[in-house]
Protein backbone atom coordinates (compact mmCIF):
# COMPACT_ATOMS: atom_id res chain seq x y z
CA UNK A 1 0.00 0.00 0.00
CA UNK A 2 2.60 2.49 -1.12
CA UNK A 3 4.15 4.75 1.46
CA UNK A 4 2.16 4.74 4.69
CA UNK A 5 4.23 7.64 5.97
CA UNK A 6 2.66 9.93 3.39
CA UNK A 7 -0.94 8.85 3.78
CA UNK A 8 -0.89 7.92 7.46
CA UNK A 9 -2.40 11.17 8.62
CA UNK A 10 -5.30 12.40 6.54
CA UNK A 11 -7.72 15.17 7.39
CA UNK A 12 -11.12 14.63 5.82
CA UNK A 13 -13.67 17.33 5.22
CA UNK A 14 -16.93 15.64 4.29
CA UNK A 15 -19.88 17.49 2.78
CA UNK A 16 -22.14 17.45 -0.25
CA UNK A 17 -20.31 17.79 -3.57
CA UNK A 18 -21.97 21.15 -4.24
CA UNK A 19 -20.86 22.51 -0.84
CA UNK A 20 -17.27 21.40 -1.26
CA UNK A 21 -16.95 22.68 -4.81
CA UNK A 22 -18.50 26.03 -3.80
CA UNK A 23 -15.95 26.27 -0.98
CA UNK A 24 -13.07 25.49 -3.36
CA UNK A 25 -14.36 28.02 -5.91
CA UNK A 26 -14.44 30.64 -3.14
CA UNK A 27 -10.78 30.00 -2.35
CA UNK A 28 -10.62 27.11 0.14
CA UNK A 29 -7.42 25.06 -0.09
CA UNK A 30 -7.09 21.28 -0.12
CA UNK A 31 -4.85 18.55 -1.48
CA UNK A 32 -7.47 16.23 -2.96
CA UNK A 33 -11.09 16.70 -4.00
CA UNK A 34 -13.52 13.82 -4.53
CA UNK A 35 -16.96 14.47 -6.02
CA UNK A 36 -20.18 12.51 -6.48
CA UNK A 37 -20.46 13.59 -10.11
CA UNK A 38 -18.34 14.83 -12.98
CA UNK A 39 -20.18 18.14 -13.51
CA UNK A 40 -18.92 19.82 -10.37
CA UNK A 41 -15.49 18.41 -11.19
CA UNK A 42 -15.70 20.00 -14.63
CA UNK A 43 -16.52 23.38 -13.01
CA UNK A 44 -13.32 23.19 -10.98
CA UNK A 45 -11.33 22.14 -14.05
CA UNK A 46 -12.72 25.09 -16.00
CA UNK A 47 -11.84 27.40 -13.11
CA UNK A 48 -8.27 26.10 -13.31
CA UNK A 49 -8.21 24.72 -9.78
CA UNK A 50 -7.29 21.13 -10.62
CA UNK A 51 -4.00 19.54 -11.56
CA UNK A 52 -4.14 17.06 -14.40
CA UNK A 53 -7.11 14.87 -15.28
CA UNK A 54 -9.63 13.78 -12.69
CA UNK A 55 -10.14 10.02 -12.36
CA UNK A 56 -13.32 8.06 -11.81
CA UNK A 57 -12.72 6.04 -8.64
CA UNK A 58 -16.14 4.51 -7.99
CA UNK A 59 -19.70 4.24 -9.20
CA UNK A 60 -22.85 4.47 -7.18
CA UNK A 61 -26.44 3.74 -8.07
CA UNK A 62 -29.72 4.96 -6.65
CA UNK A 63 -32.01 3.08 -4.34
CA UNK A 64 -35.32 3.92 -2.71
CA UNK A 65 -34.88 4.33 1.03
CA UNK A 66 -37.86 3.30 3.17
CA UNK A 67 -38.25 3.04 6.94
CA UNK A 68 -37.22 -0.36 8.32
CA UNK A 69 -39.60 -3.12 7.35
CA UNK A 70 -40.99 -1.08 4.43
CA UNK A 71 -44.34 -0.36 6.17
CA UNK A 72 -45.92 1.24 3.07
CA UNK A 73 -44.99 -1.67 0.81
CA UNK A 74 -43.01 0.27 -1.77
CA UNK A 75 -41.61 -1.86 -4.60
CA UNK A 76 -40.61 0.50 -7.40
CA UNK A 77 -40.44 4.12 -8.51
CA UNK A 78 -44.08 4.06 -9.66
CA UNK A 79 -45.18 3.45 -6.07
CA UNK A 80 -43.70 6.84 -5.15
CA UNK A 81 -46.49 8.58 -7.06
CA UNK A 82 -49.13 7.04 -4.79
CA UNK A 83 -51.35 9.76 -3.31
CA UNK A 84 -50.88 10.35 0.40
CA UNK A 85 -47.36 9.03 0.37
CA UNK A 86 -44.77 11.39 1.88
CA UNK A 87 -41.75 11.35 -0.43
CA UNK A 88 -38.62 13.39 0.13
CA UNK A 89 -36.05 14.03 -2.60
CA UNK A 90 -32.76 15.86 -2.80
CA UNK A 91 -32.90 19.25 -4.50
CA UNK A 92 -32.11 19.03 -8.24
CA UNK A 93 -29.17 21.40 -7.64
CA UNK A 94 -27.27 18.68 -5.73
CA UNK A 95 -26.02 15.50 -7.48
CA UNK A 96 -28.35 13.08 -5.69
CA UNK A 97 -31.35 15.22 -6.61
CA UNK A 98 -30.24 15.53 -10.20
CA UNK A 99 -29.85 11.74 -10.49
CA UNK A 100 -33.19 11.11 -8.76
CA UNK A 101 -34.91 13.40 -11.24
CA UNK A 102 -33.28 11.53 -14.15
CA UNK A 103 -34.38 8.18 -12.76
CA UNK A 104 -37.97 9.38 -12.22
CA UNK A 105 -38.03 10.79 -15.75
CA UNK A 106 -36.79 7.47 -17.13
CA UNK A 107 -39.51 5.63 -15.26
CA UNK A 108 -42.04 8.22 -16.42
CA UNK A 109 -43.09 8.94 -12.83
CA UNK A 110 -44.20 12.30 -11.46
CA UNK A 111 -43.62 12.66 -7.74
CA UNK A 112 -45.02 15.38 -5.45
CA UNK A 113 -42.07 15.77 -3.11
CA UNK A 114 -42.79 16.97 0.43
CA UNK A 115 -39.33 18.48 0.64
CA UNK A 116 -36.31 19.05 -1.58
CA UNK A 117 -33.44 18.46 0.78
CA UNK A 118 -30.22 20.38 0.32
CA UNK A 119 -28.15 17.27 1.02
CA UNK A 120 -28.76 13.61 0.33
CA UNK A 121 -28.19 12.96 4.04
CA UNK A 122 -31.26 15.11 4.74
CA UNK A 123 -33.35 12.70 2.66
CA UNK A 124 -31.91 9.75 4.53
CA UNK A 125 -32.48 11.21 8.00
CA UNK A 126 -36.08 12.11 7.22
CA UNK A 127 -36.81 8.54 6.14
CA UNK A 128 -34.84 7.09 9.05
CA UNK A 129 -36.77 9.11 11.64
CA UNK A 130 -40.07 8.18 10.01
CA UNK A 131 -41.18 11.63 8.80
CA UNK A 132 -41.03 10.50 5.19
CA UNK A 133 -42.37 7.24 3.75
CA UNK A 134 -39.69 7.07 1.09
CA UNK A 135 -36.80 8.93 -0.48
CA UNK A 136 -34.30 8.40 -3.27
CA UNK A 137 -30.70 8.11 -2.11
CA UNK A 138 -27.51 6.32 -3.07
CA UNK A 139 -27.11 2.61 -2.51
CA UNK A 140 -24.02 3.41 -0.41
CA UNK A 141 -26.23 5.46 1.93
CA UNK A 142 -28.38 2.44 2.67
CA UNK A 143 -25.96 -0.50 2.82
CA UNK A 144 -24.64 0.17 6.31
CA UNK A 145 -27.65 2.04 7.69
CA UNK A 146 -29.65 0.12 10.26
CA UNK A 147 -32.70 2.37 10.37
CA UNK A 148 -33.67 2.21 6.70
CA UNK A 149 -34.23 -0.51 4.13
CA UNK A 150 -33.42 -0.20 0.45
CA UNK A 151 -35.72 -0.94 -2.49
CA UNK A 152 -33.76 -1.77 -5.63
CA UNK A 153 -34.36 0.34 -8.74
CA UNK A 154 -33.93 -1.73 -11.93
CA UNK A 155 -30.94 -0.91 -14.15
CA UNK A 156 -33.16 0.38 -16.97
CA UNK A 157 -34.47 3.18 -14.73
CA UNK A 158 -31.43 3.63 -12.55
CA UNK A 159 -28.70 6.21 -13.00
CA UNK A 160 -25.05 5.40 -12.51
CA UNK A 161 -23.21 8.13 -10.67
CA UNK A 162 -19.53 8.58 -11.46
CA UNK A 163 -17.41 9.50 -8.48
CA UNK A 164 -14.38 11.50 -9.48
CA UNK A 165 -11.19 12.42 -7.67
CA UNK A 166 -8.43 14.88 -8.46
CA UNK A 167 -5.34 16.61 -7.05
CA UNK A 168 -5.84 20.33 -6.57
CA UNK A 169 -3.43 23.08 -7.58
CA UNK A 170 -3.64 24.42 -4.03
CA UNK A 171 -2.17 21.12 -2.72
CA UNK A 172 0.52 21.64 -0.12
CA UNK A 173 1.38 17.92 0.02
CA UNK A 174 1.40 17.00 -3.65
CA UNK A 175 3.19 13.65 -3.16
CA UNK A 176 0.72 12.71 -0.44
CA UNK A 177 -2.19 13.73 -2.64
CA UNK A 178 -1.08 11.43 -5.47
CA UNK A 179 -0.32 8.61 -3.03
CA UNK A 180 -3.81 8.94 -1.55
CA UNK A 181 -5.48 8.78 -4.96
CA UNK A 182 -3.34 5.74 -5.85
CA UNK A 183 -4.58 4.08 -2.67
CA UNK A 184 -8.23 4.89 -3.42
CA UNK A 185 -8.07 3.43 -6.94
CA UNK A 186 -5.99 0.40 -5.84
CA UNK A 187 -7.40 -3.07 -5.17
CA UNK A 188 -7.41 -2.31 -1.44
CA UNK A 189 -9.38 0.87 -2.05
CA UNK A 190 -11.87 -0.98 -4.23
CA UNK A 191 -12.43 -3.55 -1.46
CA UNK A 192 -13.34 -0.80 0.99
CA UNK A 193 -15.61 0.90 -1.53
CA UNK A 194 -17.39 -2.36 -2.37
CA UNK A 195 -18.03 -3.08 1.31
CA UNK A 196 -19.74 0.29 1.67
CA UNK A 197 -22.08 -0.18 -1.27
CA UNK A 198 -20.13 1.43 -4.09
CA UNK A 199 -19.14 -0.25 -7.32
CA UNK A 200 -15.52 -0.30 -8.32
CA UNK A 201 -14.58 1.92 -11.23
Amino acid at each position, binding site marked *: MGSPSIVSSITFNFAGT*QTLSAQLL*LGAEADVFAAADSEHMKQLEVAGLTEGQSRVFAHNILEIAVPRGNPKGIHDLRDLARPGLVVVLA*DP*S*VPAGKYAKQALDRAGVKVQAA*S*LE*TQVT*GVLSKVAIG*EADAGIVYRSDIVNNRSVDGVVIPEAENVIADYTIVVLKSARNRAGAYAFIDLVVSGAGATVLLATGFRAA
Partner: protein
Amino acid sequence: MRRVPAPLIALAGLGLLFFLLPLAGLILRAPWDQAAAGITAPETATALELSLFCSLAATAIALVLGIPLALVLSRMTGKPRKVLRALTTLPMVLPPVVGGVALWLAFGRRGLVGSFLYQAFGLQITFTTAAAVMAETFVAMPFLVIAVEGGIRSLDPRYEEAARALGAGGWMVFARVTLPLLRPAIFSGAVLCWARALGEFGATITFAGNFPGRTQTVPVAVYVALETRPDAAIVLSLILLAVSLAILVGMRDRWLGAL
Protein backbone atom coordinates in the same frame (compact mmCIF):
# COMPACT_ATOMS: atom_id res chain seq x y z
CA MET B 1 -23.32 63.39 23.84
CA ARG B 2 -21.68 62.88 27.23
CA ARG B 3 -17.96 62.17 27.25
CA VAL B 4 -16.94 58.57 26.75
CA PRO B 5 -13.37 57.47 27.70
CA ALA B 6 -11.15 57.15 24.62
CA PRO B 7 -10.37 53.40 25.04
CA LEU B 8 -14.08 52.65 25.11
CA ILE B 9 -14.63 54.67 21.95
CA ALA B 10 -11.84 52.67 20.28
CA LEU B 11 -13.44 49.38 21.34
CA ALA B 12 -16.87 50.57 20.24
CA GLY B 13 -15.43 51.48 16.84
CA LEU B 14 -13.85 48.05 16.55
CA GLY B 15 -17.14 46.40 17.43
CA LEU B 16 -19.02 48.48 14.89
CA LEU B 17 -16.43 47.69 12.22
CA PHE B 18 -16.71 43.99 12.95
CA PHE B 19 -20.31 43.84 11.87
CA LEU B 20 -20.24 46.57 9.29
CA LEU B 21 -17.44 44.95 7.26
CA PRO B 22 -19.40 41.80 6.27
CA LEU B 23 -22.30 44.08 5.40
CA ALA B 24 -20.00 46.21 3.24
CA GLY B 25 -18.73 43.03 1.58
CA LEU B 26 -22.29 42.02 0.77
CA ILE B 27 -23.06 45.42 -0.76
CA LEU B 28 -19.76 45.83 -2.63
CA ARG B 29 -19.66 42.30 -4.04
CA ALA B 30 -23.32 42.28 -5.02
CA PRO B 31 -23.90 41.76 -8.73
CA TRP B 32 -25.93 44.93 -9.15
CA ASP B 33 -26.50 44.28 -12.84
CA GLN B 34 -28.44 41.18 -11.83
CA ALA B 35 -30.24 42.82 -8.93
CA ALA B 36 -33.25 43.85 -11.02
CA ALA B 37 -33.64 40.33 -12.39
CA GLY B 38 -33.30 38.94 -8.86
CA ILE B 39 -35.96 41.25 -7.45
CA THR B 40 -38.49 40.47 -10.15
CA ALA B 41 -37.83 36.71 -10.24
CA PRO B 42 -41.00 34.89 -9.16
CA GLU B 43 -38.99 32.64 -6.79
CA THR B 44 -37.80 35.71 -4.91
CA ALA B 45 -41.34 36.97 -4.35
CA THR B 46 -42.47 33.48 -3.28
CA ALA B 47 -39.68 33.10 -0.72
CA LEU B 48 -40.08 36.66 0.54
CA GLU B 49 -43.85 36.33 0.97
CA LEU B 50 -43.40 33.08 2.86
CA SER B 51 -40.68 34.56 5.05
CA LEU B 52 -42.82 37.57 5.96
CA PHE B 53 -45.87 35.43 6.65
CA CYS B 54 -43.99 32.91 8.80
CA SER B 55 -42.00 35.47 10.79
CA LEU B 56 -45.08 37.63 11.48
CA ALA B 57 -47.16 34.58 12.43
CA ALA B 58 -44.36 33.43 14.75
CA THR B 59 -44.23 36.89 16.34
CA ALA B 60 -48.00 36.96 16.79
CA ILE B 61 -47.96 33.56 18.49
CA ALA B 62 -45.02 34.64 20.63
CA LEU B 63 -46.96 37.77 21.72
CA VAL B 64 -50.08 35.80 22.68
CA LEU B 65 -48.19 33.11 24.58
CA GLY B 66 -45.03 34.98 25.56
CA ILE B 67 -46.48 37.99 27.38
CA PRO B 68 -48.47 35.81 29.82
CA LEU B 69 -45.41 33.60 30.26
CA ALA B 70 -43.29 36.64 31.07
CA LEU B 71 -45.93 37.83 33.55
CA VAL B 72 -46.00 34.46 35.34
CA LEU B 73 -42.20 34.33 35.37
CA SER B 74 -41.94 37.80 36.88
CA ARG B 75 -44.37 36.94 39.69
CA MET B 76 -42.54 33.75 40.65
CA THR B 77 -39.76 33.59 43.22
CA GLY B 78 -36.96 31.28 44.30
CA LYS B 79 -36.12 27.98 42.77
CA PRO B 80 -39.23 27.39 40.61
CA ARG B 81 -38.59 30.71 38.91
CA LYS B 82 -34.97 29.82 38.23
CA VAL B 83 -35.94 26.49 36.72
CA LEU B 84 -38.74 27.92 34.59
CA ARG B 85 -36.55 30.78 33.43
CA ALA B 86 -33.79 28.38 32.38
CA LEU B 87 -36.31 26.29 30.47
CA THR B 88 -37.69 29.36 28.71
CA THR B 89 -34.27 30.51 27.58
CA LEU B 90 -33.14 27.04 26.51
CA PRO B 91 -34.01 27.57 22.82
CA MET B 92 -31.67 30.59 22.81
CA VAL B 93 -28.62 28.48 23.64
CA LEU B 94 -29.70 25.36 21.79
CA PRO B 95 -28.15 25.07 18.32
CA PRO B 96 -31.15 25.61 15.99
CA VAL B 97 -30.57 22.29 14.21
CA VAL B 98 -30.89 20.57 17.57
CA GLY B 99 -34.08 22.55 18.10
CA GLY B 100 -35.33 21.16 14.80
CA VAL B 101 -34.58 17.60 15.90
CA ALA B 102 -36.31 18.27 19.22
CA LEU B 103 -39.39 19.51 17.33
CA TRP B 104 -39.34 16.26 15.35
CA LEU B 105 -39.30 14.23 18.53
CA ALA B 106 -42.26 16.18 19.88
CA PHE B 107 -44.39 16.94 16.82
CA GLY B 108 -43.11 14.51 14.19
CA ARG B 109 -45.12 11.52 13.05
CA ARG B 110 -43.41 9.40 15.68
CA GLY B 111 -43.12 12.22 18.20
CA LEU B 112 -44.68 12.58 21.65
CA VAL B 113 -47.66 14.64 20.46
CA GLY B 114 -47.22 14.17 16.72
CA SER B 115 -47.78 10.42 16.81
CA PHE B 116 -51.17 11.00 18.39
CA LEU B 117 -52.14 13.63 15.82
CA TYR B 118 -51.02 11.34 13.01
CA GLN B 119 -52.81 8.26 14.25
CA ALA B 120 -56.01 9.97 15.32
CA PHE B 121 -56.44 12.50 12.51
CA GLY B 122 -53.86 11.53 9.88
CA LEU B 123 -52.30 14.93 10.51
CA GLN B 124 -48.62 15.46 9.71
CA ILE B 125 -47.02 18.74 10.72
CA THR B 126 -43.54 18.25 9.25
CA PHE B 127 -42.96 19.66 5.75
CA THR B 128 -45.87 22.14 6.12
CA THR B 129 -45.86 25.93 6.45
CA ALA B 130 -47.15 25.37 10.00
CA ALA B 131 -43.92 23.51 10.72
CA ALA B 132 -41.89 26.49 9.50
CA VAL B 133 -43.92 28.81 11.74
CA MET B 134 -43.44 26.47 14.71
CA ALA B 135 -39.69 26.25 14.13
CA GLU B 136 -39.44 30.04 14.04
CA THR B 137 -41.64 30.47 17.12
CA PHE B 138 -39.59 27.92 19.04
CA VAL B 139 -36.34 29.72 18.35
CA ALA B 140 -37.60 33.31 18.57
CA MET B 141 -40.15 33.42 21.43
CA PRO B 142 -37.55 33.45 24.24
CA PHE B 143 -36.30 36.83 23.01
CA LEU B 144 -39.75 38.31 23.56
CA VAL B 145 -40.25 36.63 26.94
CA ILE B 146 -36.90 37.87 28.27
CA ALA B 147 -37.52 41.44 27.08
CA VAL B 148 -41.05 41.60 28.50
CA GLU B 149 -40.06 40.01 31.78
CA GLY B 150 -37.32 42.60 32.17
CA GLY B 151 -39.89 45.30 31.45
CA ILE B 152 -42.30 43.96 34.09
CA ARG B 153 -39.56 43.80 36.71
CA SER B 154 -38.66 47.44 36.21
CA LEU B 155 -42.30 48.57 36.48
CA ASP B 156 -43.27 50.64 39.45
CA PRO B 157 -45.72 48.37 41.32
CA ARG B 158 -47.56 51.38 42.74
CA TYR B 159 -49.51 51.93 39.52
CA GLU B 160 -50.99 48.45 39.69
CA GLU B 161 -51.58 48.78 43.42
CA ALA B 162 -53.37 52.07 42.89
CA ALA B 163 -55.59 50.54 40.22
CA ARG B 164 -56.41 47.64 42.50
CA ALA B 165 -57.13 49.98 45.40
CA LEU B 166 -59.58 51.76 43.14
CA GLY B 167 -61.41 48.50 42.62
CA ALA B 168 -60.01 47.16 39.34
CA GLY B 169 -59.95 43.38 39.00
CA GLY B 170 -56.95 41.31 37.94
CA TRP B 171 -57.80 41.28 34.25
CA MET B 172 -58.65 44.97 34.23
CA VAL B 173 -55.32 45.87 35.88
CA PHE B 174 -53.47 43.78 33.33
CA ALA B 175 -55.27 45.18 30.30
CA ARG B 176 -55.55 48.82 31.33
CA VAL B 177 -52.44 49.39 33.44
CA THR B 178 -49.74 46.72 33.05
CA LEU B 179 -49.99 46.23 29.30
CA PRO B 180 -49.87 49.94 28.32
CA LEU B 181 -46.93 50.54 30.68
CA LEU B 182 -45.12 47.64 29.04
CA ARG B 183 -45.47 49.00 25.53
CA PRO B 184 -41.75 49.81 24.99
CA ALA B 185 -40.64 46.45 26.39
CA ILE B 186 -43.19 44.55 24.30
CA PHE B 187 -42.16 46.50 21.22
CA SER B 188 -38.45 45.83 21.60
CA GLY B 189 -39.15 42.19 22.49
CA ALA B 190 -41.39 41.76 19.46
CA VAL B 191 -38.79 43.32 17.18
CA LEU B 192 -36.05 41.03 18.50
CA CYS B 193 -38.35 38.04 18.19
CA TRP B 194 -39.42 38.95 14.67
CA ALA B 195 -35.85 39.56 13.51
CA ARG B 196 -34.74 36.24 14.92
CA ALA B 197 -37.69 34.49 13.27
CA LEU B 198 -36.99 36.14 9.93
CA GLY B 199 -33.40 34.91 9.93
CA GLU B 200 -34.21 31.43 11.22
CA PHE B 201 -32.60 28.67 9.21
CA GLY B 202 -31.40 25.60 11.11
CA ALA B 203 -34.58 24.56 12.89
CA THR B 204 -36.67 25.36 9.81
CA ILE B 205 -34.68 23.27 7.34
CA THR B 206 -34.50 20.39 9.82
CA PHE B 207 -38.13 20.32 10.95
CA ALA B 208 -39.93 21.78 7.93
CA GLY B 209 -37.61 20.85 5.06
CA ASN B 210 -37.22 22.82 1.85
CA PHE B 211 -40.00 23.33 -0.65
CA PRO B 212 -40.60 26.56 -2.60
CA GLY B 213 -43.79 28.31 -1.54
CA ARG B 214 -44.38 25.99 1.40
CA THR B 215 -41.31 25.88 3.60
CA GLN B 216 -38.57 27.59 1.61
CA THR B 217 -38.12 30.86 3.50
CA VAL B 218 -35.54 33.40 2.31
CA PRO B 219 -32.67 32.10 4.49
CA VAL B 220 -33.29 28.57 3.19
CA ALA B 221 -33.51 29.87 -0.39
CA VAL B 222 -30.23 31.75 0.12
CA TYR B 223 -28.59 28.56 1.33
CA VAL B 224 -29.83 26.56 -1.64
CA ALA B 225 -28.78 29.28 -4.09
CA LEU B 226 -25.37 29.80 -2.49
CA GLU B 227 -24.04 26.54 -3.81
CA THR B 228 -25.31 26.82 -7.35
CA ARG B 229 -25.83 30.53 -8.02
CA PRO B 230 -23.79 32.53 -5.47
CA ASP B 231 -24.70 35.80 -7.20
CA ALA B 232 -28.42 35.11 -6.78
CA ALA B 233 -27.79 34.28 -3.12
CA ILE B 234 -26.17 37.67 -2.53
CA VAL B 235 -29.02 39.50 -4.26
CA LEU B 236 -31.58 37.58 -2.21
CA SER B 237 -29.69 38.39 1.01
CA LEU B 238 -29.70 42.09 0.17
CA ILE B 239 -33.40 42.03 -0.60
CA LEU B 240 -34.15 40.46 2.79
CA LEU B 241 -31.89 43.03 4.44
CA ALA B 242 -33.66 45.93 2.72
CA VAL B 243 -37.13 44.62 3.50
CA SER B 244 -36.32 44.05 7.18
CA LEU B 245 -34.80 47.51 7.52
CA ALA B 246 -37.82 49.12 5.90
CA ILE B 247 -40.24 47.27 8.17
CA LEU B 248 -38.18 48.00 11.28
CA VAL B 249 -38.02 51.72 10.57
CA GLY B 250 -41.68 51.86 9.58
CA MET B 251 -42.88 50.02 12.66
CA ARG B 252 -40.70 52.04 15.01
CA ASP B 253 -42.23 55.31 13.83
CA ARG B 254 -45.72 53.98 13.99
CA TRP B 255 -45.43 52.24 17.36
CA LEU B 256 -43.14 54.49 19.31
CA GLY B 257 -44.06 57.76 17.65
CA ALA B 258 -46.85 58.28 20.17
CA LEU B 259 -44.56 57.96 23.16
